[in-house]
């Protein structure tokens, strides 16, 4: 079957089988390998992408189900070579080690902060509870997301941990 949709602002078409998951379509057909696949059954969150503004698990979505929709993957977050404020905050806080979970963490947090720029630490923890990280112990990830809130119009900085919001450069998307 042919399916057409938008990825990171570009119109794309792909020939897929009905059983082709969106994660497979992105990685194998469209060569967008930033989206990672961990468990392939909905538990780890590594494959999270944003469909029309909503974070979804791309391993639990068929490519044919996103006909006509607009998708943002981790590749769509940066402006060219410049990291987005959220990505920059991850780097500053050492919120990644092996990086396997990172695309899912970034897309999930981006969707959350776009909708809820003032998300509390508890809310961020609750939302990220669906994303597994085997390396960082999560603390640095939560700090990075808190720190990035200002760039989305949320409260300035993660004061509890002494990181200034100004460091994000305030360039919200």
């Amino acid at each position, binding site marked *: 079957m042919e399916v057409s949709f938008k990825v990171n602002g570009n119109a794309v078409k792909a020939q897929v089988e009905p*059983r082709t998951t969106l994660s497979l379509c992105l990685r194998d057909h469209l060569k967008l390998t930033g989206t990672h696949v961990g468990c392939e*059954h909905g538990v780890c969150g590594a494959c999270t992408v944003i469909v029309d503004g909503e974070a979804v698990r791309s391993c639990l979505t068929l490519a044919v189900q996103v006909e006509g929709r607009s998708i943002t993957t981790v590749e769509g977050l940066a402006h060219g070579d410049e990291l987005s404020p959220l990505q920059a905050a991850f780097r500053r806080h050492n919120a990644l080690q092996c990086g396997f979970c990172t695309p899912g963490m970034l897309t999930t947090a981006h969707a959350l902060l776009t909708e809820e720029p003032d998300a509390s630490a508890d809310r961020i923890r*609750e939302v990220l509870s669906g994303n597994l990280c085997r390396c960082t112990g999560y603390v640095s990830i939560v700090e990075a997301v808190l720190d990035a809130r200002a760039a989305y119009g949320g409260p300035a900085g993660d004061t509890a941990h002494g990181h200034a919001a100004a460091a994000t450069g305030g360039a919200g998307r």
Partner: protein
Amino acid sequence: MKPPQFDYAAPATLPEALALLAHPDGDARPLAGGQSLMPVLAFRLASPRLLVDLRRIEGMDRIDIDAQGVRMGAKVRWCDIERDARLRTALPPLAEAIGHVAHYQIRNRGTVGGSLAHADPAAELPGIAVACDATIEVASVRGTRNIAAADFFQGALATALEPDELVTAISFPAWPAGRASAFEELARRHGDFAMAGTAVWFDLDAAGRAHNTHIGVIGASDRPRRLTAAEAKLDGQVVDARSIGEAACAAAGACDPADDLHASAAYRRNLVGVLVERALARALAGTRGGLAAAGSTVNRSGESH
């Protein structure tokens, strides 16, 4: 693993979808959010011939609230329920339970109809449906029928649905102001399926006696169910620490959990007692602005959230 091969159709109308499901070749399955069906396919626990995607069918995505109660279309998603502030008074147990249903990304796709049809014994909505006397509306090429939630769930992942039937909506009777209720569950990780959970409610008379007592449990049996033995301990009694304790004890004795990877049957049985006790005390506190005695017995068993 990758899912097995299947054909795919995304009909634009309900009659077309029903016709596809009734096709003589058989083995067609509805696809709603895919949040349970996709894992089932990935594990190759099912290999349907055809998936009938409901995404293009208009309607079935509204939450209607009126004097008759709450009616939710099959395509209402968890995130729609979460955002609907009216449910806090129109159906408090659901409003309370929804925060426990799955994770952020899954809540953007998982639906009411999919959850009911999948019938996981630990899922919250089926539990609320049984505990709150809901009716499930079903359609097929043969017409429509209504099934009481108590008759709908027939075992783990087993329902009263015929293979060609579609859930179209669920409706709940009206919820009077002042009714006492609470929902409690324990899961290993926030958003995972509950190890056990309970939804309780009752109406208090002027003398502080409970009437219309409902105690429903999830994760404690092969299906969501009411624990009538526990209800009987509270119904007609003054609701206090003693009657709550007796109902909780009866609940632990009345459920029939199984051993599995996550917990032994004995652990689950004990957990049901603790959760029912907590929920009843909190339900009472909610109507009365707190009854110290009931509160203190319960707090020894840990934090409530």
